[in-house]
C-alpha cells in the first residue's frame, strides 16, 4: 500500500512538473472572459451558459488529461528505459500499474476540484449584487450545490477513461492507445443505440451481438447529468451511488486486466 501511494505521489509530482496544471489557468481565463462576453450576447441566459461552459470544459479538459497522460504512464517508462530500474526495485508490476493509476486519478481530482471552485467563483461574481427581478429568470440558483453532482459524475467518468487509457497503454503504442481510448469514449456515449439495434436491423443475430456489446462496453452516457443539473432536474443520490458503483467495478476490472497484461509483458 505504501509503495503504491509513493508511486501515485511521484506520478502527481511529475504531472505538476510537466505543467499539466497550467490548464487550470486557461480554464480560469476562459470562464472569466466568457462571463463578460456571454453577458452581452445571450439575452439573459448568461448563468445557464456559464454553467454549461464550466461543466463541459471541466469534462473536456479532464478527458484530455486522462487520455494523453494515461497513455504515457507506462509507455513513457518503457521508451525512456526507466522501466528497468523501476522493476529492479522491490515493486511488483501490479503495484506499479495501480500506483500510476492512483497518481493520475489524484491529478484529475485536484484539477476537477479547482475547476469546480473556479466555476462557483465566476458564478458568484456574475450574480453578486443582482436585483430580485433579475434573479427571476434563473431556473436554478446560480450557486446550486447540485452542480457538484455533475462534477462528481464527470470525475467518475474520467477515472474510468483513465483506466481505459492505462489498459491500452500496457500493450500498445501511445498513438494507438489514444485512438482506442477516444474511440471507446465516443462509443461509450452512444452505447444506448446498441441496445435498441433490433429496431434498425432485421438480423436477430446482429441485434443480439449489438446488445451483448451494449452490456460489455463501458456505458459512459450515464455519467452525463450536466444538462439535468443545469435545468434543476433532480438527480437522486441513489443514481449517483449506482453509477459510482458501476464505475468502481468497471475500473477494478480494467486494472486487473492491465496488471495481468503488464505482468506478462517482456521488456527485453
Amino acid at each position: 500500500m505504501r509503495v503504491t501511494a509513493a508511486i501515485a505521489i511521484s506520478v502527481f509530482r511529475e504531472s505538476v512538473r510537466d505543467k499539466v496544471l497550467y490548464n487550470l489557468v486557461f480554464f480560469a481565463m476562459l470562464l472569466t472572459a466568457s462571463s463578460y462576453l456571454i453577458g452581452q450576447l445571450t439575452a439573459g441566459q448568461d448563468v445557464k451558459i456559464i454553467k454549461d461552459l464550466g461543466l463541459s470544459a471541466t469534462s473536456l479538459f479532464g478527458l484530455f488529461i486522462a487520455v494523453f497522460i494515461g497513455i504515457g504512464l507506462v509507455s513513457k517508462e518503457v521508451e525512456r528505459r526507466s522501466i528497468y530500474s523501476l522493476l529492479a526495485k522491490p515493486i511488483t508490476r501490479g503495484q506499479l500499474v495501480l500506483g500510476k493509476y492512483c497518481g493520475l486519478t489524484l491529478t484529475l481530482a485536484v484539477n476537477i476540484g479547482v475547476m469546480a471552485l473556479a466555476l462557483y467563483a465566476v458564478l458568484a461574481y456574475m450574480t453578486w449584487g443582482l436585483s430580485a427581478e433579475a434573479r427571476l429568470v434563473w431556473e436554478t440558483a446560480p450557486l446550486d450545490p447540485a452542480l457538484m453532482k455533475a462534477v462528481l459524475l464527470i470525475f467518475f467518468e474520467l477515472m474510468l477513461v483513465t483506466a481505459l487509457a492505462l489498459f491500452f497503454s500496457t500493450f500498445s503504442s501511445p498513438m494507438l492507445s489514444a485512438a482506442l481510448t477516444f474511440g471507446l469514449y465516443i462509443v461509450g456515449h452512444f452505447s444506448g443505440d446498441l441496445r435498441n439495434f433490433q429496431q434498425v436491423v432485421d438480423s436477430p443475430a446482429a441485434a443480439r451481438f449489438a446488445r451483448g456489446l451494449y452490456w460489455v462496453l463501458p456505458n459512459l452516457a450515464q455519467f452525463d447529468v450536466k444538462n439535468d443539473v443545469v435545468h434543476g432536474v433532480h438527480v437522486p443520490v441513489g443514481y449517483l451511488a449506482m453509477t459510482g458503483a458501476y464505475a468502481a467495478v468497471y475500473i477494478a476490472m480494467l486494472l486487473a486486466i492491465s496488471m495481468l497484461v503488464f505482468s506478462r509483458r517482456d521488456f527485453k
Partner: protein
Amino acid sequence: MIGRSPGAVVATIGVVGVLLAAAVQLQAARERVYPQARETEQSLYLRSGIALRRMTGAYNALAADLYWIRAIQYYGGTKQRLDALGAVRPGSAPLAPAADAYPLLYPLLDIATTLDPRFNIAYRFGAIYLAESYPRGANRPDLAITLLEKGLRERPDKWEYMEDIGFVHYWFRHDFRAAADWFKRASDVPGAPWWLRSMSATTLAQGGDRQSSRAMWTAIRQSAELEWLRNDADRRLLQLQALDVMDQLQSAITSYAQRSGVQPDWQALVSARVLRGMPLDPTGTPFELSDGRVHLSTSSPLWPLPEEPAVAVQPPS
C-alpha cells in the same frame, strides 16, 4: 539573435511588437483597398438537430448555447440589415409580409431546442420573434406555434408555453377561440396563475377589443421573468395607447373636415385650436397625417402597429 540576456529579451519583445503592429497596419490597408462586403450570406450547413445531437455527444448543451447565441445574433443582425436597407420606408403600408425575412431563425431555434429540449428561453423567444410582423419578426406565427408545441411535448406541464401559444393565436392570428382554449388549458395546469382563467373567459367574450388586449399584456408583463419579455409587453401596451390616441385624433380630424370642407394638416388643426400642438405618440414621435388619415410614423419605435380585427369574436352560444 534570440539570446537569454535581458537585452536580447527586450529586443525580441520589441521586434515582436513591431511585427504585430505591421501586421495590423497591413490588414487595415488591405481592408481600405479591398473592402470586405458588408453583407455576408448567412447559411446553416447542418440543419438536422438530431444529427447535431449525435455529433456533439456529451456536449450538446454547450452546442445548444452556441446555436442560441447564433439565433440572437442572427435576429439582431438581420433586423439591423433590414433597417439599413430601408425595409422601413416612410409612408409605406405596415405589415408588408416578407416570409423570407428571417429564413434561418426557426432552424436555429429548432436546433437549439433539439440539442437542449429544456431550453426554455429559446421557445419563448421564438414565440415572439417568429410570430412578430415584418420587419421586426419573421411573420410566421405557424412556426412559433410549432416550436412551442415541441416545447410542450418535452414539458407538458409548462403552462407558460400554453399561454404563449394562446397569445400567438390572439395577437397574430386573431383566432380568439383557439386563444381562449389555450389560456384555459394553461389555467388547468397546477401552479398556473389565477388570471389565466379569467383571460380565457375574457378572450372568448370580448377577444380582439383593446380592453381585453390591454388586460392580456398587463398580465403578461406582470408574469414575465425576462427583461426583454417585460419590455416587449410594455411596447405592446404603448401600441394600444397609441391606437387610442389615433382614434381620438381621427375623430377630431374627420369632424373638422366635415365642418370646413377641406382636408386639414396639423398646422391648420393647431391654428383652429382643434389641437393644442403637434400630436405625439407615447414614445414622443410625431404622428403623421396624410389624406385626412392619421398614421403612426414609421420612425416610431412602436411601428408597425398591430392589425386589429374588423369584428370582435362572438361569444359561444
